[in-house]
């Protein structure tokens, strides 16, 4: 019962970016992936959701391997990504964006709707319900993007650089929202962040990616305090 990446290899064009990457995310767990730019973090999540082809290795969730499925089928299985830069549908309303998320939920829908909890916690999304998504500020868009992903009832949620381009204040909000999502959905969350410090602070476990390989893994708090990590990825000497 977990999201498993086993010995994955993938990349763009000719050059492989990921090689032999293995990791796991348990339900209800927040796992961070940190690493320098170009280390392959975004490549990793794009490979998991099928936006990049897996060249070797395997991907599996609770129902077994999904490595051969196309991107939209993975979403329907509950492997849901919030892409870098939010990627809301700019000319759909906030409500329609979230409705699209609900569509992907399919059979997993039912029971208590975690979306309601998010909307209660961040009423701004509800206030903007009928507005076109491109009229929202960056922070609001990220809220909607996260809500939309939650509406899809993810079993595993992949977040690609959720703080990118946000002001410090909004970044705090986003991390609060992520915490809330973890509480309410029980989904396993894989968080890819350039802000390694925050990511490690929020996560249970973490992996460190370097040149497309996992070079360290373990308890997030321990990694955060490890000198090696601090020096290499937190810019602390």
């Amino acid at each position, binding site marked *: 019962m977990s999201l498993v990446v086993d010995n994955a290899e993938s990349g*763009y*064009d*000719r*050059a492989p*970016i990921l090689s032999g990457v293995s990791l796991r995310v348990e339900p209800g767990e927040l796992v961070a992936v940190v*690493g*320098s*730019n*170009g280390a392959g973090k975004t490549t990793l999540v794009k490979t998991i959701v099928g936006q990049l082809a897996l060249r070797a290795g395997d991907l599996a969730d609770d129902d077994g391997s999904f490595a051969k499925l196309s991107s939209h089928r993975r979403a329907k299985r509950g492997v849901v990504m919030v892409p870098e830069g939010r990627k809301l549908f700019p000319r759909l309303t906030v409500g329609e964006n979230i409705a699209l998320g609900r569509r992907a939920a399919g059979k997993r829908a039912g029971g208590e709707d975690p979306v309601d909890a998010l909307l209660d916690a961040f009423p701004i999304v509800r206030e903007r319900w009928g507005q076109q998504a491109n009229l929202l*500020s*960056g*922070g609001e868009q990220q809220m909607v993007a996260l809500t939309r992903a939650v509406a899809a009832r993810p079993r595993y949620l992949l977040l690609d*650089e959720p703080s*990118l*381009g*946000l*002001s*410090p*204040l*909004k*970044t*705090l909000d986003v*991390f*609060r929202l992520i*915490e809330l999502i973890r509480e309410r959905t029980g989904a396993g969350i894989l968080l890819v962040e*350039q*802000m*390694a*410090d*925050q990511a490690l*602070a*929020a996560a249970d476990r973490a992996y460190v990616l370097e*040149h497309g390989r996992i070079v360290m893994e373990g308890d997030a*708090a321990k990694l*955060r*305090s490890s000198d090696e990590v601090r020096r*290499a*990825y*937190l*810019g*602390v*000497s």
Partner: protein
Amino acid sequence: MSTVEKDPTRAGRRRAGPGAADRGTHVRSALRRDVLFAVAALAIAIIVILPGRNGEGTSISTMQLVASMAAMTVAAVGLNLLVGYTKLVSLGQGGFYAIGAYGSAYLALDKGWHPVLAILGALALCGIVGAVTAMASMRLRGPQFSVITLVMAVLVERILNEGNAFGRLAGYPNFAQHGTTVTEPITFLGTTFTPPMIAGEVATVMVPIVVITALVVILSRNIARSPWGASLSAIGESEMLASHLGVHVFRRKVAVFVLASVLGGLGGVMATQAFSHLQPETFDIFLTITIVLAVVFGGSGTVLGPVVGAVAIVWLEQSDILVEASQWQQDTISESWFLSTSGLVGVLFLLTLFLMPRGIVGTAGAVVAARLHRRDAAEADGAGGLDETSEELVEDLTHVVHEKPAPGSLLTLTDMGKRFGGLQAVAGLDLSVDRGQIHAVIGPNGAGKSTLANLVTGVYKPSSGQVTFAGNDLTGQAPHSVSRAGIARTFQTPQLFHDATVRDNVLAGFADTGRTPLWAAALKPPSRYRRDAEMRVESDRLLALVGLEDVPDVRASELPYGKQRALEIARALAGGPELIVLDEPAAGLLATETSGLGDLLMSLRDQGYALVVVEHHMDLVSRIADQVTCMDQGRLLARGTPQEVLSDERVIAAYLGKPLDEHGHAVETDDGTTTTPAGPGSTSPSPSLSNGGDPS
């Protein structure tokens, strides 16, 4: 004349030194390649018409074929400038071909012009129609552009079909109007240029046809590989980017369209000279499509692509191979389900798209390039880039003569305002930046920071206020004027030429891209060779400056993100700016890279550059900025040194959420706990996350 040259002190000094020897080598090798190409092109041109030198009847259809190929080649070379480089898929080239063909015949026969003048007149007409079409379609891209050019071609065809002056479907010339159905061969300088028509007559017109074709290929190669050509690729990539590189996009687009139109017309002129009679049926919609096919089939965006494509298509359409293939299908597959010539051309074309997506020449070239650069690509994934430049950079800069910043403010914004519909994005903002100063602009999302950057660089025209730069009023100037005045910029997401090499990206940054005149690009005078070599040496220096010296031949898209940022800064420097506007340069960078970026920016400041940095990374801001402006809702919220601004209560309330220390680190969280402070002088990503239960 480039900005670099306009400012001899700085530019001249920078270029002095170790580059001189390299320059000589570059000039010599470039000259050797160009001469070889020209000789080869002319030789091939002459060889193909040798069979017709005695005027043997058996060579006539061959000469006609060669003439068709030449005409198609010239038209395709012209179209390639649009389709291949500027990325404008014009379906109107057939229309210009027709104007050239009919225009030259009409001016000579009906208007009595000297045939040579008539040809020039027809080409001028093509240019004028091209300019008008270009101006009309200036805002169009994609299918809309294709359709408007197609409409133009259809209208031309319609005029030829219906215009009495052109003989309509009786052809031109015709008995009723001219008493003959053939145009007179041109006699010029005592030579008569006979078309390939009658056995026994030497088809002398073939000589100018193939020689001119060869010249067109040679000149178009020069153009494609010049800064002028680079500006076309820049427009193809993004018109906004091109204008930031100092390219007057409007003029350049009109110019390239005119050039393409004239070449299309020249193709038509050749057809007239070779076939001596014009029928409007020749100039139907299939002609225009065939020219496009020729470009893509051969390889759009390559020098030889349109040549190979044109020759191949003309040859295929008349060769027996397709007829035999069609017969074979009928014999072996089905007597009714078979394809004949046009269908087979379609199939061939689809196969090309599948198997050789860049056309014959492009795909062959890519295979060769892949072999050559495999090593480099591997290196691109390795170390290097911003995070490792800091040390070298300082060394590198020590031998750059530091210039005393001239006193006074370089950039001054007065009462800047910008309104979008009902939204006041920027209001009443003043800002001034001195030489040798870094001015950071911070603020919440939607505060108007990017709008401000766009106002400074000319993307937006201000609704109110004034921009003064180095004593000149730049208010409302277009991006290319702003760029030429000495303001460069980088973008939130790096805007690079993804298919071009790292070096070519930097080369595009030189002011030459916007300023090289077309004639100099085409004719390549000695000064051009020298300048090319200079630019190359300078680009190598700039690449070294940002830590990309090991990967000059790697495609930009293959670079990791951080290095793309570095490359973009190198390109901005190439233009020889005095002020650089950086829009969130640290976005997406890791802490170590951000730190390297800080070093780079500070060293630029030390060289006398003024920098405006729009940024969210408070550690970076607090480390490098001399002055910080915090904006909120389009207005000035606070201004001062980093310490002053970051501790300003309004800034904290509107933006930061909590106070930061002098290094941009969170001091206190909203619930009162304190995060682990980083060591003094260190940089750590900011601000730290705080949440109530955090054990650290």
